[in-house]
């Protein structure tokens, strides 16, 4: 039976390996047909920033991989509003990530959902398994 998995991402990309490792584990768990959600809290919101350019830093740019999550049935990316605001960011600073809804003639729908800190607490409370990165 599918369990509800939540992956909490709290680190900026590139400075540490956490963001990339989380993405790898998410893709693996999706292959086992679990009910996967991702949460982006604190500096984790920087993982979804639009226009990441790592050429100068000489690192692999994995930001496009988030756009492919929909193809792996990962459709719920929760971004915490307060975390964006504290960092001077808005939803417009993040890349657009969509998935195709098979129940509605494969209509493209946004995968990112902006939630408040208290709503995020509720999302955590509704999970079977929570993994932190």
């Amino acid at each position, binding site marked *: 039976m599918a369990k509800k998995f939540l992956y909490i991402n709290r680190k900026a990309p590139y*400075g540490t390996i956490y963001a990339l490792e989380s993405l790898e584990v998410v893709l693996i768990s999706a292959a086992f047909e679990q009910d996967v959600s991702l949460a982006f809290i604190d500096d984790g919101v920087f993982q979804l*920033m639009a*226009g990441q*350019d*790592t050429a100068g830093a000489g*690192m692999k740019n994995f930001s496009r991989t988030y756009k492919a999550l929909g193809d792996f049935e990962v459709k719920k990316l929760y971004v915490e509003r307060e975390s964006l605001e504290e*960092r001077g960011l808005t939803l417009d600073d993040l890349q657009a990530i969509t998935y195709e809804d098979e129940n509605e003639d494969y209509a493209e729908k946004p995968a990112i959902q902006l939630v408040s800190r208290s709503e995020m607490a509720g999302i955590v409370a509704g999970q079977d398994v929570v993994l932190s990165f």
Partner: protein
Amino acid sequence: MSTLHTVNKSPFERNALCSCFSHLSAGDAVLMIEDGVIGARKGATTAAMVQAAMQKGKVYALASDLAARGIKAQDVIDGIQLVDYGGFVDLVTQHARTVAWL
């Protein structure tokens, strides 16, 4: 001779930037690198702390680390100077010592 301080941690993650700022001498320079560049974002709750430190010394940020994290040059706090890796080396040579705040 003055000191170059490098900070490579986000101010939201650790207090390295805050601690660095409270240990500045007149004429010192601070260079934000790696996740440290998150402190350079305009509109962040940490911006006032950065602006206060800029009264004491110059603040720089490594452009390629900003770009990697999707932070555009126009979204950087006014007065922070962007440098490339060559500029990083120049800053090291222009100061008597370098202190890394990890």
